[in-house]
């Protein structure tokens, strides 16, 4: 239904614009003037500009526009990341020397500047990236109807968005990502710290006696990561956490074959706690001589084990509602 009303609205607007009949050169200039004001070349539109220069049917330039809500009061996290990606692409396009005679304008329409439009179009999920292609001139599209870019994790990234747009326009668009010196510094600092730590270890600790434990810890950590979906995260790069509409944090994706980044960490830690309880019960508890102490420690380890396992179980139940078994009423 939403698509339908959107179409209808567009048709109306197109009609109105056609009646007014703005010159194309003027339109492009108006948009570019707006774009030049911004340091990233991202034209900030309001509803009038949007209607007049973007949604007109015959134009010889293309517009990539994001519908967004950047004001902090909307608490829109994805908007910010999409905005950052689009800005990087826009900046790259602005600085690009060989544009092959293309006119592509990157623009942004915030909900604060076009609230009535958002309401009319019944846009209830943002951010969105819409593309209004050129319909005449040398670079006209065969199908000039506006289209929306699907925002998958891939296309939300800077390089993914650039390549998607490059593909669409048939010209290479290079994104321009500013060098993050802070990050380089951080990496350099942590590398130096690690080197120093290694040096200290080398100096003060006898590796022969420690060797086995280091290997054991490394192996166990590796296995814990692998069995808690680390590779899935690497390959699918999911968001770190989820969010409800009201802005609450969700730690666990409520689906069986998906997960958030934080899940791997929680699950790996839970596995580690369970394994540690087992190891402690075998290795350390029997060494305790005092009966009272031993009983207490055993009891605590068993409780920790059963609590952790039932926590895992309850999370699994949440992800797979048909699962019938519960532990400790969880």
């Amino acid at each position, binding site marked *: 239904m939403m698509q339908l009303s959107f179409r209808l609205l567009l048709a109306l607007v197109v009609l109105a614009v056609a009646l007014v009949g703005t010159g194309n050169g003027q339109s492009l200039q108006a948009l570019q003037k707006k774009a030049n004001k911004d340091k990233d070349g991202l034209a900030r539109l309001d509803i009038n500009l949007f209607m007049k220069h973007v949604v007109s049917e015959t134009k010889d330039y293309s517009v990539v526009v994001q519908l967004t809500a950047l004001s902090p009061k909307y608490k829109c996290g994805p908007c910010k990341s999409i905005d950052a990606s689009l800005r990087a692409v826009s900046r790259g396009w602005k600085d690009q020397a060989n544009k092959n005679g293309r006119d592509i304008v990157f623009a942004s329409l915030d909900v604060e500047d076009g609230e009535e439009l958002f309401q009319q179009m019944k846009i209830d999920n943002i951010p969105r990236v819409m593309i209004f292609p050129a319909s005449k001139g040398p670079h006209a599209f065969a199908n000039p109807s506006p289209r929306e870019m699907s925002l998958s994790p891939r296309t939300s990234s800077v390089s993914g968005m650039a390549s998607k747009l490059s593909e669409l326009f048939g010209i290479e668009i290079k994104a321009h990502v500013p060098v993050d010196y802070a990050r380089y510094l951080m990496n350099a600092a942590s590398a130096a710290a690690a080197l120093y730590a290694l040096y200290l270890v080398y100096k003060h600790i006898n590796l022969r006696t420690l060797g086995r434990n280091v290997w054991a810890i490394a192996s166990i950590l590796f*296995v814990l990561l692998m069995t*808690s*979906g680390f590779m899935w995260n690497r390959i699918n790069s999911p968001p770190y956490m989820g969010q409800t509409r009201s802005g609450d944090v969700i730690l666990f994706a409520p689906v069986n074959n998906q*997960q958030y980044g934080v899940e791997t960490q929680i699950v790996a830690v839970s596995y580690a706690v369970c394994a540690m309880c087992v190891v402690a019960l075998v290795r350390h508890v029997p060494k305790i001589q005092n009966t009272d102490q031993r009983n207490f420690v055993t009891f605590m380890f068993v409780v920790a084990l059963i609590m952790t396992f039932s926590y895992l179980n309850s999370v699994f139940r949440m992800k797979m509602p048909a699962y019938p078994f519960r532990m400790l009423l969880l």
Partner: protein
Amino acid sequence: MAYKVFGLTASDQTSLLRIAILGLISIVAVGSRLYSVIRFESVIHEFDPWFNYRTTRYLVDNGFDKFWNWFDETAWYPLGRVVGGTLYPGIMVTSATIYNALHLVNIPVDIRNVCVFLAPAFSALTALATYQLGKEVKNATAGLLAAAFIGVAPGYISRSVAGSYDNEGIAIFLLVFTFFLWLRSVRLGSALYGALTAIFYFYMVSAWGGYVFIINLIPLHVFALLVMGRYSNRLYVAYSTFYVLGTLASMQIPFVGFQPTFTSEHMAALGTFGLIQLVAFASYVRTLVPSDQFRMLIRLSILGLFVVGFGGLVLLTMTKVIAPWTGRFYSLWDTAYAKVHIPIIASVSEHQPTAWPNFFFDLNMLIWLLPAGIYFSFRELSDNHVFLILYSLFAAYFAGVMVRLILTLTPIVCVMAGVAMANVFEIYLDFSKTKAEAENMAVATAPAEKEKEKGKSQGGAGEPPVAVAAKTLYETAGFKRFYALFPKIVVVANFLYFLCMFQWHCSWITSSAYSSPSVVLASRGPDGSHHIIDDFREAYYWLQMNTKADAKVLSWWDYGYQLAGMADRTTLVDNNTWNNTHIATVGKILASDEDTAYELARRHDVDYVLVVFGGMLGYSGDDINKFLWMIRIAQGVYPDGFKEEDFYNAAGEYAIGDTASPTMRRSLMHKLCYYRFHEVMGPQGFDRVRKQKLPKDITLDNFEEAYTTENWMVRIYKVKDLDNYGRSHHAVSAFEGPRFKNDFVF
């Protein structure tokens, strides 16, 4: 220890108990794999098993020589397939042997039943092999626990339920047993066990492509031991025997052939074999040369060898003498590789990476016993434990990258969990010491009480005897005994509870997730009634009964094996996805518009086109949902044809109704799926998978609906012959008018 029961000594009792327990484990292992047979019938499942079943039948009917030289001209039409040289014959030969043996003793069992029950039978053997492996690395307790775990672990059941007649069904047994033999041969330094390892390795090579795991893991084990400075003559004997015999034997399988001598997958084994010879030689020289010179000698020679070896390897790889890693294996290392370069590998859902719920689903508590097991292995760290640790690391990595490889992780997880659990039980089920301790405490309290009583009776004679009885609970001897035993009771009760949970979990997962044949589907009505949906077999049976024996049927590759197995008709592509171009051609035909598709289909001699459509039932694994992969694969080979984007509508949605993109609406797949569908669903009809309104007015001129099954899941179309008058089919139908005009009244 002197107790005798039925005249049996304690050790006899133990072995009797072990045999009984292993028997019970086997029964449970087989029994829990029979859900599908009980619920449906004794039928071969899914896709690949149908090929195995068909070739097994061929083997049983025609004998081994004919099977070995079989050229199947009904697959990959018009190319054909050299079946004997392109399959792993292990499973077929195993079934045929069992079949012939049973017939020899006059048990007239059907070959289908042999095939259906092969995997459960082998799962019992796997449990026994795992017991041996656990016993080899720790003791019988660990072995029994490991056997019990692998008997019911869903990670293994997923590939070995009755009817899933696939290579993995026997391969896991071979994998575990080969590893067991290997560990024993290393421990004993026995050439006999080395040779046995090689024989079972050969069996494994003949059964499953996963043998590459063995031929890389064993050399890695050897290499790790060498690096750790644990070279021994035992290791030398075991590895040399195994490598030489195993490699020679594996080259007898035509599909493997000379690969062990020139592909990267096998180079590690060859390199290790060379290395261990050198190390053996060095350790021999050491006995002759004084140690200072020896150290010098060894340093120089290691350096020289490294340079020569590495340079040689690079040179050979660059000159293409050594084949690089094949795509399937390469994608395990470079995880983005398949996604970008080989869509056909990425398109298979079981090649996706594994999210954590999958691990928990398939292994439950075993998954957190694995790290504990690794810890205990590091405590002891014998040669065997090094192997276990390496196996855990690599299997965990592979399982993380690819869902289906949880299968190779399962055995080691079970063994490690068995080891960890055995450690727990060894301490907490051993009551001998604690009993004494408890008695001590009880006895120690008793005299004190008596003294107290004495004192009381002497000192205060006037006090009533009630006070003597009213001593607090924790002072009684019984409580003291309980207090000393408390840790054992709590821990044992807890782990028993976990074990019960595990068994429930496994049964439930097996019953609800892994026991559906996928050839036959089941659904439940709102009133709880049970419906069997048998559209696939209905369609294949129709094809078999109503089409010419040499008719060619075009379908997406998923259904190739089933078509060959059940309908016995010629297919263009099947699940043996060896020719990407051919598959892309089929994708192109299905994604093209009707006229192009007709032209291409006629050029490929296609008589029928079969599509699977779930819109009526809500079956989501249908061709419309797979369609994007077909387009991607076709696009990869024929880039100038169409683009994936063209199949999304203006709003960027993958729509199928009247809002679908024009390219989508023109495509053959869309037409074949939705042709006349709105007539049965009514004017307000919905596609139950996509939850979208149906498209109307689908015309189809070049193809003719031949058969549609009861629930519209399979639709078969005939490719029309050329018109007798040389007109186009569009002209013919325009002349004759719509065919079904009067047939349907709403």
